[in-house]
């Protein structure tokens, strides 16, 4: 007959509480400094602004770090009895079922966590009360946030404790699993274009959720809504993580019920998972160590890869995989003599990796050559030459697709030029194409194209031609065409006079009322409709019809009427050499701007700015 009353053991609970006090004292000291003492300091200032934002920000940023550490240290200390045969023997000899041992130890850590948080909460409340700034809502939110964070990290750390058989492995697995997805994402982004011409992984993916520290920092925020007021926008995320913490704890209990005591001191305690971790760490080695090797050996910079970059990277990845695989094999087998026993496994891994890289390099999966079907595309976003352009006219999109195909066909010449010219990166145009599909998916491609004869010049010319057909210009400039002239209040014309020197400043002229409306209606819109205003210069060619003037025409309008697609109360247009009607009007006003020699660089700059903005 088995005991039904052994899910919690009081003696063990109090023993845990008593023997692990240093961990909890350190946790409290850190929070004391981070919360009540800092509050005290801030409230002593004459104008303690943003105090509530600090409270919530503290719960988010300090809370995540503190709980990530506390979760691990508590789980390690409470469940470290699993890690030596002596202690596991002593605990498993006790007349307490595994469930009882688990729940008692788990609750010991959780009780201290909650008790510490409540203690800090109470102290902070007393301090705020003393300074008459107490708004209990924010402190309660702080308490809820740190408790939910703690629940997740502690539950996750306990789960890792039951996956592993020693403290070192526990630390490694907990640390890696907290960050691994985001690290893999970063590396895949880096490698993707090396393996696959044009492949671009941009933006955040749904996989970020598997890197909790990163996810909590990046995707949730404390917001200041007005002076002294604040709110937190990540409750859903926090509740999901807290629930995940409980699920991890439940999984840990399931693992415990099946765990063999003899797994103490093993690297991975669950025998069935050992092959998985062996190949998992081989893959991590291939990605992380492989990339380090590649950067150190083959590329003075990642931007100037050798001609056979995929093969060079493959060699590095096999070398990195070798290190990851055999170190893991040594840890799993607790022996240095693993080469004979596990060598065939590595050979199989290297062959699979090589096959995969070869398949990608030769585009077996048709990723490089993939262009979405025209009828599946909602819009196409092109960036790289000026501010990003979005097209939704199928006719325009189909023509740009032809340019895209030409870029793909020109791959060999592009890669050959890149590998033979060490300065190629600095001469390149970074062209991004983003297809927004009707099913909500996004297909992104990014190419470094070179304005060199025999390399990409013809491709770039074709792209320039397709971007500047009248249909393409009017499609892209449609918000200007839709702008009701009657809404226009003033138009500013900022320009550098063609008669002035290189260092000349911008001058400004204003048009108001009917004059401004007439300028928009009869000149600007007329040029746009004919495809002569709003052109995009891709190549820098002197005298090109697409070249810009050093002239920015800012149209200010009232928001009454709406429906223009323009997002602000002003819009800016830069005239091209082809904008004959516009320039004739300006000439009538005595405005003769000089032709810009910066359009090429400006495009590069805008692309660069956009890239910076997109970076996570």
């Amino acid at each position, binding site marked *: 007959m088995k*005991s039904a009353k052994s899910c919690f053991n009081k*003696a063990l609970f109090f023993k845990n509480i008593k023997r692990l006090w240093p961990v909890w004292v350190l946790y409290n000291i850190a929070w004391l400094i981070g919360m009540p003492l800092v509050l005290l300091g801030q409230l002593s200032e004459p104008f303690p602004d943003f105090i509530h934002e600090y409270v919530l920000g503290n719960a988010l940023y300090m809370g995540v770090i503190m709980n990530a550490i506390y979760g691990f240290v508590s789980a390690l200390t409470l469940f470290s009895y699993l890690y030596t045969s002596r202690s596991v023997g002593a605990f498993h000899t006790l007349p307490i079922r595994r469930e009882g041992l688990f729940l008692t130890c788990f609750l010991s850590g959780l009780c201290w966590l909650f008790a510490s948080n409540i203690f800090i909460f109470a102290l902070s409340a007393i301090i705020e009360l003393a300074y008459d700034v107490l708004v209990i809502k924010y402190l309660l939110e702080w308490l809820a946030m740190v408790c939910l964070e703690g629940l997740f990290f502690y539950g996750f750390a306990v789960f890792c404790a039951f996956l592993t058989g020693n403290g070192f492995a526990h630390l490694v697995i907990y640390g890696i699993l907290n960050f691994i997805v985001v690290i893999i994402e970063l590396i895949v982004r880096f490698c993707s274009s090396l393996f696959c011409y044009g492949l671009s992984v941009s933006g955040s993916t749904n996989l970020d959720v598997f890197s909790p520290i990163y996810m909590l920092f990046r995707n949730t925020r404390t917001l200041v809504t007005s002076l002294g007021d604040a709110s937190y926008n990540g409750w859903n995320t926090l509740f999901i993580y807290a629930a995940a913490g409980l699920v991890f704890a439940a999984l840990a209990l399931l693992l415990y019920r099946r765990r063999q005591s003899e797994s103490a001191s093993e690297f991975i305690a669950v025998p069935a998972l050992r092959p998985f971790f062996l190949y998992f760490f081989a893959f991590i080695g291939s990605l992380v160590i492989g990339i380090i090797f590649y950067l150190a050996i083959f590329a003075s910079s990642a931007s100037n890869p050798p001609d056979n970059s995929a093969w060079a990277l493959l060699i590095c990845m096999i070398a990195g995989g070798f290190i990851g695989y055999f170190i893991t094999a040594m840890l799993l087998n607790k022996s240095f003599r693993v080469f004979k026993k596990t060598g065939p496994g590595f050979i199989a891994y290297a062959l699979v990796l090589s096959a995969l890289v070869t398949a990608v390099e030769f585009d077996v999966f048709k990723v490089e050559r993939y262009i979405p079907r025209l009828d599946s595309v909602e819009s196409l976003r092109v960036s790289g030459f000026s501010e990003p352009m979005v097209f939704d006219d199928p006719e325009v999109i189909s023509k740009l697709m032809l340019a895209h195909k030409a870029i793909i066909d020109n791959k060999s010449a592009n890669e050959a030029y890149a590998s033979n010219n060490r300065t190629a990166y600095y001469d390149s145009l970074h062209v991004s194409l983003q297809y927004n599909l009707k099913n909500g998916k996004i297909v992104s491609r990014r190419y470094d194209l070179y304005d060199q004869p025999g390399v990409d010049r013809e491709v770039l010319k074709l792209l320039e031609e397709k971007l500047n057909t009248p249909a393409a210009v009017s499609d892209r400039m449609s918000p200007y065409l839709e702008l009701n002239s009657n809404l226009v209040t003033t138009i500013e014309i900022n320009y550098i006079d063609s008669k002035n020197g290189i260092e000349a400043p911008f001058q400004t002229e204003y048009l108001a009322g009917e004059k401004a409306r007439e300028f928009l209606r009869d000149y600007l819109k007329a040029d746009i409709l004919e495809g002569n205003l709003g052109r995009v210069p891709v190549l820098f060619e002197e005298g090109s019809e697409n070249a810009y003037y050093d002239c920015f025409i800012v149209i200010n309008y009232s928001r009454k009427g709406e429906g223009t697609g323009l997002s602000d109360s002003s819009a800016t247009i830069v005239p091209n050499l082809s904008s004959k009607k516009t320039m004739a009007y300006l000439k009538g006003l005595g405005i003769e701007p000089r032709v810009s020699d910066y359009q090429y660089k400006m495009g590069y700059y805008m692309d660069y700015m956009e890239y910076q903005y997109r970076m996570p």
Partner: protein
Amino acid sequence: MIEVKNLVKRFGGFTALDNLSFNVEKGSVYGLVGPNGAGKSTVIRHLTGIYRQDSGEVLIDGQSVYENPEIKQRIAYIPDEIFFFIQASTRDMMNFYRGIYPRFDTKLYEKLGKIFEFDEKRPMRQLSKGMQKQSAFRLAVSMRPDVLILDEPVDGLDPVMRRQVWSIIMNDVSERGTTVLVSSHNLRELEDVCDHVGILHNGRLLLQRSLSELQDNIAKVQLVLPEGKTLPEDFGAIHQSSSGRVLTLIMRGSNEHISQKVAALNPIFFDLVPLTLEEIFIYELGGVDYEVREILL
């Protein structure tokens, strides 16, 4: 009291216990002996509920031990390496065990303090190995167990303390009918306390008998044969050696049977000497090619 039935335990590809079966009667002292790696500690870890068997049964009073708190609170176990919490003293451990084992006898614990004279408030990590063993005995006996399982129990104790410890255990056996299973390499000591012995080799039980049966079934013969006479090749000695004209034989069988067989050779002189447990251990294992025999002899 203790029943092990067809117990199998594998560690990876290695079979540590291979269909092992044996019984220990209530109130008996059972010695589990065997060479290094025979599986003694593995058996003990099954008996204490640490290991889960791959197959077979480990029963105490007819109930499975694994994950059975009712049974486990009647078992006290003293491992070869004593466990204690890093900061804990013997008194701290007593307080801990008192909350876990309902039959823990605090009075007995205090009484045993007169025998085990060391500072119970001193952290156990600061105690010598022998003192840690004493501490473990004091705690284990105070649990008032029905089953006491000991792995190399007196290793590290001085001769006086060994006697004290065995005296306490034997007293418990006689007064309370405690069942004791002890694993040790100190066969001379086991010989004094065990009434049954099981010899384990490669995860299998070579034999299990009472000590008297064991000693009655094998004997050492010293004899001198008449001049020119030699021992027949099929005489049946499991081991023989000679020193001058004196032959020493190890023979299986009862003393009477061996005496008759030897007398038939008309020796000038012969004598039967009972074997010690250590000698029995060596000769029994010699039968399964245990190479240490020649080293010990």
